[in-house]
Each structure stands twice: as C-alpha cells, then as structure tokens.
C-alpha cells in the first residue's frame, strides 16, 4: 500500500461534553478512494471533519489524538488550518456554489480566498478554470456558460462545480461528505465515475450512506458504529466476507 497519506492515531472527538469518536486508528492510503460507512450518528462525518480541522469550527467542539498528513500532525502548533484545508479540500452533501458568483468566479473563489490567485491575470485565470472544470468532468457542459450564475446549473452540475472549486486550489486530498445524497442516479453516476478518475491525482475519502455506492467507488472501506471504528479492510473483503458480525449486520440490512 505504500506509506499512507493520513495516519490517524487514537483520535477522539467531542461536541461539548459528548464524546462522538473513541480512539480511532486508521491509515488512509494515497491515491485510493476510502469509503467511510455507518449509520447516522456513528461519527463518520465528524471523523473526516477532523482530518482537515473543520470539526473545531463548531463552538464547543474539540478533539484529541494525532492526524498525520504525510507524517506531520495537523494538530501541531504552527499548522495553519486555512492552509491545511487547501491541501485537504471538502465537498458537502448539498451542492453549495456561492449564489452571487458566476461559474467562473465559483471555480476561482478558493484561489482568491487563500490568496493564491494568480493576480487576476486573464490568461492564467482561464487556464485554472478550464483545468479545474475539466478535472471535475464539467468543462464540456459549461464552457459556454462560464459567466452564468453558478446556481443556474443543475444539481449534479452544481456538485461537480463544487468539486472543481475544491480542485482549483490543488489539494492533495479530497474529502466528500455524502456527495451524491441530493443527486439523481445519473448525476450520482457521473460523480462516482469522477471519483475513479480523480484517484490518479488525489487521495479521496468519501462518507456515504449508500453501501452500494461505497462498494462501487472505494478501494478501502471503514465501518463506524457509535463513534468507534469497527472494521477497516479492502472494499472487496468488506462486501463479500466481513470479519465482524456488526459490519455484516449493517451492510446486509439487519439493524436494531
């Protein structure tokens, strides 16, 4: 597998006094898609939000333990969370393009916010926009509509626009929190297809409620339950013969 992109050690997280993650240990392989599955409230979203320090943005939330990105603990003193989030981008459940911005401005928004915008020079802008939209498999559909509002696109296109926005800043890792739950099957299939091609350049972590989606898109699957990591293995293994009976019960639909 090579050295992991992320090495998570004894990671625990709280909202106020409520502990939502219990000592997670997990390595996330580079250039692989890792799926995180589990029932609502199992801590899977909190887990990925700890990877780019978004968890701490919630008032009263905190975490303990180590999250090493290429060997460096992202919780070390001196790590700038803003720069971290540039390396570890995120796509959310509902497409959230900036409503007042055009398609083009949406793609460039991340670059502007992080101050890495190539000085608004027309040619370089154009290059960055085309590259990000192409990687997000959206370029052909929107190349003639770059100045239309981002929110004028369809839901599936908006989600790919958000992926393009995340890719524009050149991250190492893309975290996706239920990226298809608001999309129709065709738009979902496009995102899933995209995940396969993005693995070449990025490390992908995708949280999903859809077990079938996890089975389709990921190389590795982590199953969370009540804030604990129950099982982590190759996706092929998890979906054909998981070792833990709790994983088995969850993926075969035997709950409660």
């Amino acid at each position, binding site marked *: 597998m090579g050295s992991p992109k992320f090495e998570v050690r004894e990671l625990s997280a709280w909202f106020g006094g409520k502990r939502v993650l219990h000592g997670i240990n997990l390595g996330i392989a580079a250039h692989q898609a890792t799926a995180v599955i589990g029932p609502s409230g199992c801590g899977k979203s909190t887990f990925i939000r700890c990877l780019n320090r978004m968890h701490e943005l919630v008032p009263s939330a905190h975490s303990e333990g180590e999250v090493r990105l290429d060997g460096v603990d992202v919780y070390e003193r001196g790590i700038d969370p803003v720069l971290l989030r540039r390396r570890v981008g995120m796509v959310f459940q509902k497409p959230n393009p900036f409503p007042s911005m055009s398609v083009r401005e949406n793609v460039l928004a991340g670059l502007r916010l992080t101050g890495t915008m190539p000085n608004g020079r027309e040619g370089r802008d154009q290059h960055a926009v085309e590259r990000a939209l192409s990687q997000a498999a959206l370029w052909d559909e929107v190349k003639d509509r770059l100045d239309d509002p981002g929110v004028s696109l369809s839901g599936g296109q908006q989600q790919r626009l958000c992926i393009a926005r995340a890719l524009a800043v050149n991250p190492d890792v893309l975290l996706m929190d239920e990226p298809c739950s608001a999309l129709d099957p065709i738009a979902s299939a496009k995102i899933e297809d995209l995940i396969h091609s993005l693995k070449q350049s990025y490390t992908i972590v995708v949280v999903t409620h859809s077990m079938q989606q996890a089975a389709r898109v990921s190389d590795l699957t982590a199953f969370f339950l009540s804030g604990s990591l129950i099982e982590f293995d190759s996706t092929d293994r998890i979906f054909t013969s998981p070792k833990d009976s709790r994983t088995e019960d969850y993926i075969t*639909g035997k709950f409660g």
Partner: protein
Amino acid sequence: MIKPHTDREYENELNKLRERLLRMAGRVEQMIADSVKALVEQDVQLARRTIEADRVVDRAEVETDELCLVILAKRQPVASDLRFITLSLKMVTDLERIGDLAVNICERAIDLGQDPPLKPWVDVPRMAAIVQGMVRDAIDAFVAGDVQRAQSVVDRDQSLDDLYTRVFRDLLSTMLNDGSKVERGIHAQSVAKWLERMGDHATNLAEQVVFMVKGKDIRHVAKPDDA
C-alpha cells in the same frame, strides 16, 4: 444469534429460496434411493415414476434460478447474503445433475428389466446409501451452517471412490471370464460410475456450504482446514 433483515419482504424472499432448495434436495435424495431400489428389485414401474419425478426437479431448478436473479437485481445482496445467493445458483445445478444421474440409473433398470443380475447387488446399494447420506448431510449442513458436517461430506467422498474402484475391478474380471456377461456388466459399471459422480456433486454442495458459512473457498485445495 441470527438476526433477521430489517426489510421483512427481503427476509421472506431469502426464506423462500432456502425452502425451495430444501424441497428440491429432498426430492433428489428420494430419487437416489428409488432409482437404486428400482434397479435392485427390478421394479420398472418405480423406475418410470422416478424418471417422472425428475421433471419436478428440473422445474425447481429453473424457478430457483429465477428467484435468485430477482433477488440479485432487486436487493443487491452483499456479504453472507451474497454468498448464500451465489451458492444457491450453484447448488441447484449440482442437485439437478444428481437428479439426471438418478434418471440414468432408472433407464438402466428399465433396460435390464427382468434379466437376472450378474450377481446379487451388494456394493451398488452400499454406494447409493453413502451418496444419499452425503446429499442429506450437505443439505443439513447448509440449513444449520454447520461447517463440520459439510467437511464430513467432503471426507466421505473417498470411500465412495474406493467402492467404485472395487466394483469396477469385480465387473472387469467377471466380464473377462465370460463374454456373455459383458452387456450386463457394462450396465452395472455405468450405474456404479453414476453413483460415484453423484458423490462428486454432493462434495461440491458441501464445499459450497463451507464457503457460505466461512467465506473461504476450500475447492481444489490439498488440505482444506488451514483456516
């Protein structure tokens, strides 16, 4: 210990599949017994009835396959459910083949009709009893998820092969000594061969049960229990 699926309709479909397989296996087991009984007791009527019963087994194969496809399409089963469905698809094929072999024996029983046997049937009924036991235990192991019992079926196949070798040698020497016995000898040898083949199918069933329970493929492995 065994939890039902939250979706009860899905649970019902899986139960229906399980019941169909059991019924089919029960029919096949009966066919093995009846075919050899028809042969030994020279009961042509029983042979004909048994051939007739094979149609039900053939139909069960088709219906079970259909049910498996519907479940695969609608439910996208995973893990033990997936192993159960794929196992079912294979099991019906083995069961159906055993039924066909029993039909072959019945046809020989009809051909031989009232001809006196070369000598009293001894090893062939013994082989039939072993095969029947193997099929029954493979199915019981399947129902109970009992790996040990499934393994015992795999182990018993050797005794069946040994019996077949003995029958073959006996018949060969009988035929060499008396050319007039060749035709009946060949029929008898075929019957023994088919029973031996049934044993191979029963072994397949048992190996599939081990896979269903443990998620571990023991086919074509020298020593199966290195888990």
